[in-house]
């Protein structure tokens, strides 16, 4: 026979202070945990978008990222000899020459106190065919004017990127480029960038070389074979899949992630001990009561289950409060974060959002912590010697 649920939550309510304090500890730990997992999720989402298996990024040999790669035009032209590159409707190979610049813009989330290096990518029309997930929301830049389009995440997190604003990009003169539209990239890394017309940007920055090239391979092509061809003696450039490129750049973020999970792990352990503490107290004062229940006819199993249920209730209520607190924090204080790529010297902007998967994970963790912490006291309680317990005052 199982104990009624109302018995359990009434029990928790009777010992209001203990319950409240334990629930708060759990809530704080869960709140922090949910934030960490949401941030890790944002990183993972961005990286998964940036892993088109048919896309290769080509850099100058010796460069560690697009930002410090200088690809001369004649070397770029050699890429058209690769057969495995997909063709567009007119039979031209889908190779996108790109040039990276940076511009320092204020961060909106701290009121512009610090500035972030935002990547500016000079592209041609081929870029929209090669980067298949980029979609315009509004106008594109005109080919004759000094205009740029801004990635959605960049516009949300950095100042001066609204439509109509003029951004000073370039070198050797104040070169204003007007923002005329936005683009989305399914949340990938390119959403943190500003895109402009390649010749105009090369002009503005006095550059004669590209930074990199992106290729879209045919569906049947073997990426590794193409990479070998690019690094081989005919072309002598460096190539890697888009996924590998961004994974290399996410090194710093992985370290941050590791450190934060380590800290939260330790705090969760502390929460487990706190729950165990509360559960022992919950059991200690009710020895007489449990003995009474045993004499009425409840089995020791139902007492064990009952105590586990109480611990679960504590954990879940605490978890719910923690999730709610994190959601409030994200809305009220800020849900944006940007981090440098390992070698790009430009930032990737992230949008930290809670979603059901994250909440489920947090609840599952807390349920495990609650059950783990309550196991020993619950077993003890269920193994009471009834008669001697009854005798206890």
């Amino acid at each position, binding site marked *: 026979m199982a104990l009624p649920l109302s018995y359990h939550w009434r029990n928790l309510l009777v010992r209001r*202070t*203990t319950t409240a*304090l334990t629930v*708060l*500890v759990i809530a*704080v*730990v869960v709140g*922090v945990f949910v934030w960490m997992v949401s941030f890790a999720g944002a990183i993972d989402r961005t990286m998964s978008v940036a892993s088109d298996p048919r896309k290769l990024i080509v850099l*100058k040999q*010796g*460069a*560690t990222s697009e*930002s*410090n790669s*200088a690809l001369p035009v004649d070397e770029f032209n050699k890429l058209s000899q690769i057969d495995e590159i997909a063709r567009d409707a007119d039979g031209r190979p889908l190779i996108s020459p790109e040039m990276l610049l*940076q*511009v*320092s813009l204020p*961060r909106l989330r*701290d009121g512009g*106190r*610090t*500035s*972030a*290096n935002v990547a500016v990518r000079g592209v041609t029309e081929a870029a929209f065919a090669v980067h298949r997930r980029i979609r315009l929301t509004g106008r594109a830049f005109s080919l004759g004017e000094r205009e740029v389009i801004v990635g959605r995440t960049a516009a949300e997190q950095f100042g001066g990127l609204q439509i109509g604003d003029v951004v*000073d*990009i*370039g*070198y050797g*003169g*104040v070169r204003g480029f007007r923002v005329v539209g936005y683009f989305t990239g399914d949340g990938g890394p390119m959403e943190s960038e500003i895109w402009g017309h390649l010749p105009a940007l090369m002009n503005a920055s006095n550059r004669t*070389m590209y930074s990199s090239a992106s290729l879209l391979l045919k569906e049947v092509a073997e990426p590794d074979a193409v990479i070998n061809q690019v690094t081989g003696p005919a072309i002598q450039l460096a190539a890697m899949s888009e996924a590998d490129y961004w994974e290399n750049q996410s090194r*710093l*973020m992985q*370290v*941050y992630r590791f*450190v*934060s999970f380590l*800290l939260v792990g*330790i*705090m969760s*352990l*502390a*929460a487990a*001990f*706190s729950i165990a*503490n*509360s559960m*022992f*107290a919950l059991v*200690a*004062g009710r020895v007489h009561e449990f003995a009474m229940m045993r004499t009425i006819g409840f089995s020791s199993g139902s007492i064990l289950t009952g105590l586990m249920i109480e611990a679960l209730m504590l954990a879940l209520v605490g978890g719910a409060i923690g999730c709610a607190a994190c959601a409030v924090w994200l809305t009220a204080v800020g849900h944006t*974060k*940007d*981090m*440098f790529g390992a*070698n790009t*010297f430009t*930032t990737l902007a992230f949008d930290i959002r809670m979603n059901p998967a994250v909440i489920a994970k947090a609840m599952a963790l807390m349920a495990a912590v609650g059950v783990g912490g309550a196991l020993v006291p619950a077993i003890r309680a269920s193994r009471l010697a009834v008669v001697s317990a009854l005798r206890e*005052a």
Partner: protein
Amino acid sequence: MTLTYVLMQNLRRNPLRMGLTVIAFALPMAVFVAAISFVVALARVGAHNEAQLRLGVHHKQTLTNPLPEALRRRIEGLDPDRARLAAVCGMRWFGGRVPETQNTLTSLAADVDTFHIVYSDTDMTPEEVVAWQRDRTACVVGRNPATTYGWKLGDRVTLESTVPPYLALEFHIVKVMDNAERANFFYFRRDYLDESRKAAGFDDPRCNIFWVKCRSAAALRSLQQDIDALFAHTPDETKSEDENAFAANFTQAAGDLPGLMQAMAVVVVVVVALVAGNTMMMSIRERTRELAVFKAIGFQSSRVFTIVLGESVLLAMIGSVIGVLPTAALLYAFPVRGLSFGPISGLEVSWVAVVGSMVISLAVGLLAGIWPAMRAMRLHTTDALRRVA
């Protein structure tokens, strides 16, 4: 019966609860001392930078746009008497990678004549300055890369630049810097870089940033405005920032680990306060009758108050000692070196952090114990005696 005796007896009453509480207190405190060490290190670097009075002048749009080296003379021309500025050092980013690795060092080419003046915190002795000025390939290395790659004074090392034109240059170490603030840096001579670039066909001596050593904080502020005003509306528009503001831009983007640590420190304090408070409340509730007996036999209310508060503080201190001391010892024995999160070059425990953690625990113990102690003090003796457990 002394206070200490009573306290120890009380704590021994329920060893299981004591044990669990102490562990639940110690674990967050371990996190706290690490986090606080980080925050303290950051504060120390900040104070150091402020004292060094260096102003960084770079292109307004982005640090990566280099400025003509002639700007140095124009900056110096703002103050011919050298009343406000002591020296100007132009620097260019080299981005040298250690061959056969993926590690790029923070390597910069600096003006040979003013480097040791502007970067006086490298503590170069007159002999070292002479060596720097005499040897074209001289370089000054921070202790982190020196330890990691086993470089010593007098070694010849090669770095491969990760920025165009990707030169690989050989250097001769004339000094290894000891101090923490310069631990991750690698400086060499800009004239050597410019000659090598010229030989490769790139004849454009430029600087990414000029560091101006100022004579006072007021001078720094006034120079900051004057320099930006001087170059405003020119192709070489500048933005001048003091070293802390400059570093803050990187710290934010390098993951804002300091922000994370500060947040964790606050979370820890909240959690341990709740844990301690919980235990104390439980403890008081089951000893209502006993405390009433104390009062009945003549203990004053204030003494009862002290007993309960003292127990809370003792609990907090024990938990804190168990959490802080092993962590501090671990970090002391194995300091985390070789970090490159902005200005922090390593995580070392400092006495300030340890003492600070103990003080915070004391405060938490007091805070957590106040409410139970007041309840105990205000017990109505006869009512409490009548109560059944």
